[in-house]
């Protein structure tokens, strides 16, 4: 007998990667749209001027982490849950459960690929920001990436939870869109978290994307972000992850 050509988990990941490349819509919204939005904002002259109410920062500086989080939101609550729900609805998960590959290989592959797409979106925003608008690379790179990873994990678990709790692809799309708006707001797409007044800012900073936006901004300026923000992200990721695992229906 010849040896297996590959480990099933890898074979599934390779296949899912090919399929991922066949979804130009998802690829656009996750990898291209956030950098494009970032460029459009950067083309507004006022956004490239230091602003007094932002402590001398420029609006475009604030929007680098926001554009990156936008990519994470697009991938997590728009693109991925749709795929997972379709796999459940069309009984793909069930089909793989009968083979040496497992249903969870498909789910893991989806998490990995969407995380990878977010990484591409992130890299594009950082490079464009540096080259086109003189946005400094994050001052404290390690905490910046740590927060980003936590933000991506929490966003993906939110996506996982959406597909876990909704019964059909249609429901997933509807719930995903609602959550999408909420996450965009808390990540500061409309008003950066730093500019939100008093109690509103505090509330938004205790949401996963709000905490990530605030913390990434602090890290961009070269500081370690508040421990509170990191704990908020960790708590959301662990809590939502546990719920998603608990409630995910395989069939």
């Amino acid at each position, binding site marked *: *007998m*010849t*040896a*297996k*050509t*590959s480990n*099933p988990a890898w*074979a*599934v990941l390779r*296949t*899912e990667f*090919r*399929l991922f490349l*066949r*979804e130009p819509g998802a690829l656009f919204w996750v990898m291209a749209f956030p950098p494009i939005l970032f460029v459009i904002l950067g083309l507004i002259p006022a956004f490239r001027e230091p602003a007094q109410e932002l402590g001398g920062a420029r609006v475009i500086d604030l929007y680098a982490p926001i554009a990156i989080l936008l990519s994470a939101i697009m991938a997590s609550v728009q693109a991925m849950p749709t795929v997972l729900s*379709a*796999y459940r609805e*069309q*009984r*793909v998960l*069930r*089909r793989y*459960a*009968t*083979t*040496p*590959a*497992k249903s969870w290989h498909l789910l893991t592959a989806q998490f990995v690929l969407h995380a990878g797409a977010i990484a591409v979106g992130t890299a594009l925003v950082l490079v464009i920001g540096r080259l086109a608008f003189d946005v400094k690379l994050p001052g404290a790179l390690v905490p910046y990436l740590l927060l980003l990873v936590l933000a991506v994990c929490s966003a993906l678990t939110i996506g996982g939870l959406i597909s876990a709790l909704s019964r059909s692809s249609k429901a997933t799309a509807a719930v995903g869109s609602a959550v999408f708006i909420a996450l965009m707001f808390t990540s500061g797409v409309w008003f950066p978290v730093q500019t939100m007044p008093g109690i509103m800012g505090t509330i938004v900073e205790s949401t996963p994307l709000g905490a990530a936006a605030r913390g990434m901004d602090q890290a961009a300026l070269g500081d370690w972000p508040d421990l509170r923000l990191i704990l908020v992200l960790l708590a959301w990721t662990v809590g939502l992850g546990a719920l998603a695992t608990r409630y995910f229906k395989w069939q």
Partner: protein
Amino acid sequence: MAIIEVRGLRKTYGDVVAVDHIDLDVGEGEIFGILGPNGAGKTTTVESIAGLTRPTAGTVSVAGIDPYLDRVAATSMIGVQLQQAGLQGKLTVKEALELFASFYDDPADGLELAEQLGLGDKRDAYYSALSGGQQQRLAIALALVGRPRVALLDELTTGLDPASRRNVWKLVEAARDQGTTIVLVSHLMPEVQRLCDRIALIDRGRVAALDTPAGLVASSSAPTVMSFTPDAPVDLERLRALEGVAEVRQRAERLEVVADDAAVLAVLDLLSRSDVRPEKLRVTQSTLDEAYLSLVAGSENEEAPA
């Protein structure tokens, strides 16, 4: 030697009893058919053998392992075609076959299987672009591509055209000749009669009969079919009242009487006393169809016919 052993299998979903009590032994290298009306528990039985469903009671063993508990061993030696299962929409036929082949130690040539099933020109088509019958044939190819020790095929050729059906039959026989034990669920009597070494007839969650196709026909209470064109009107009720007559049907000008051997003479006797000549008389052995219907007659009245 039995490669599949099912003992006292029972599966309930809440108050619904899907499988009441089933014992089965399937020998290595056998093609074993499972027949029965809708809702009789066929799919649940197959899913239990595949290890997808946990029995409420009883045990299932495939080559000595519990397929529900030992998933690694079970999935590497059992190929499955499920009634309800799909693939990723944008996966091509060729990619699906290659992916599934890569899961197994000694796979068959997937493209050759596709060719034999008439999917050769569809190798680059997306799964979502295939017709229902093509998806079904691909599912059969995927169930067999790993050269499994056991292949479970649920609703083997339901919905396929006669030519595709024959291709599938050949493939199933070829897989058996290479050592694969096959369990198939089917509603098509000619299919079961041609392919299966033995048949279990499942009715209301129990094995109602278990025999070779010929044995089932012979054990039927009405193994004979008479058909003739009466030259004068016949009182059908009097025919039906004869002992051993199971069924009397009017087919255009011909009459069909399903009966046991002893009743054949009684029918002829009655006809001659009534001065009716049975023209173009044919007396044939009844088919598996007839045997099936007489064996599950009780439940057919309560449930949709299979």
